[in-house]
């Protein structure tokens, strides 16, 4: 039981760039364009809010990756990354308006996602091993689709356990059981 968002994440993580070179180059130029539009949108916001930050644009796999790096951007990350998710949502909409294509752009601010990915990966591994050793089913705290994807991957690397997501957003959470 995974959401459409998680499915997307899974597809994007697993799939290799298209073999068709022409198709692939078109995709990359679209993703680069997505990054540029996103950067303009975010840069103007930083200017208005008088916040210092540099914007890096990259293409990771099949999606555009935009990160804002700077000294103190913690308020743009927010509690539990809430503000970061909101900004990503708005940025995707801004990109969609320009390109007409639904964007799966990934936004990071102050390295939050990168750090969180490491923490969650470790959490997933530790909890999966506990379930494997004790047989007791584990219910984790609610997480965003991005966070659940990271944990699912970490659990999948441990033999003898399975994970699935339960509940509705924003209370959707991962359950790990022996399997």
């Amino acid at each position, binding site marked *: 039981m995974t959401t459409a968002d998680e499915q997307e994440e899974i597809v994007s993580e697993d799939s290799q760039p298209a073999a068709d070179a022409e198709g692939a180059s078109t995709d990359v130029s679209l993703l680069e364009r997505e990054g540029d539009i996103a950067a303009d949108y975010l840069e103007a*916001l930083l200017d208005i*809010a008088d916040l210092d930050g540099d914007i890096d644009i990259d293409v990771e796999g099949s999606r555009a990756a935009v990160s804002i790096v700077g000294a103190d951007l913690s*308020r743009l990350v927010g509690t539990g990354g809430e503000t970061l998710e909101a900004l990503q*949502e708005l940025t995707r*909409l*801004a990109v969609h308006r320009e390109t007409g294509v639904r964007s799966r752009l990934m936004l990071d601010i102050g390295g939050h996602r990168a750090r969180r990915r490491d923490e969650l990966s470790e959490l997933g591994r530790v909890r999966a091993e506990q379930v494997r050793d004790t047989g007791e089913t584990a219910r984790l705290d609610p997480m965003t689709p991005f966070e659940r994807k990271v944990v699912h991957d970490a659990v999948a690397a441990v033999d003898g356990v399975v994970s699935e997501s339960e509940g509705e957003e924003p209370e959707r959470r991962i359950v790990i059981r022996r399997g």
Partner: protein
Amino acid sequence: MLEEALEHLVRGIVDHPDEVQVDLRTLRRGKVLEVRVHPDDLGKVIGRGGRTARALRTVIAALGGRGVRVDLVDVDRVR
């Protein structure tokens, strides 16, 4: 600054950016940012299940607007 930030955020996601208007009003019960958009863009600004409106409120709160309400004004209904 909050008005300008909200106006920028909304303008970037609608089909009629020139018709976006944001006003900061001080009422007895507190401050309100009133957002007016072209009627065809209202659904866009609200988003599925109110998702986009919630994202706008979250960002405005983070930029210092905690306690400032964000209202989407339905132009059709106001008259």
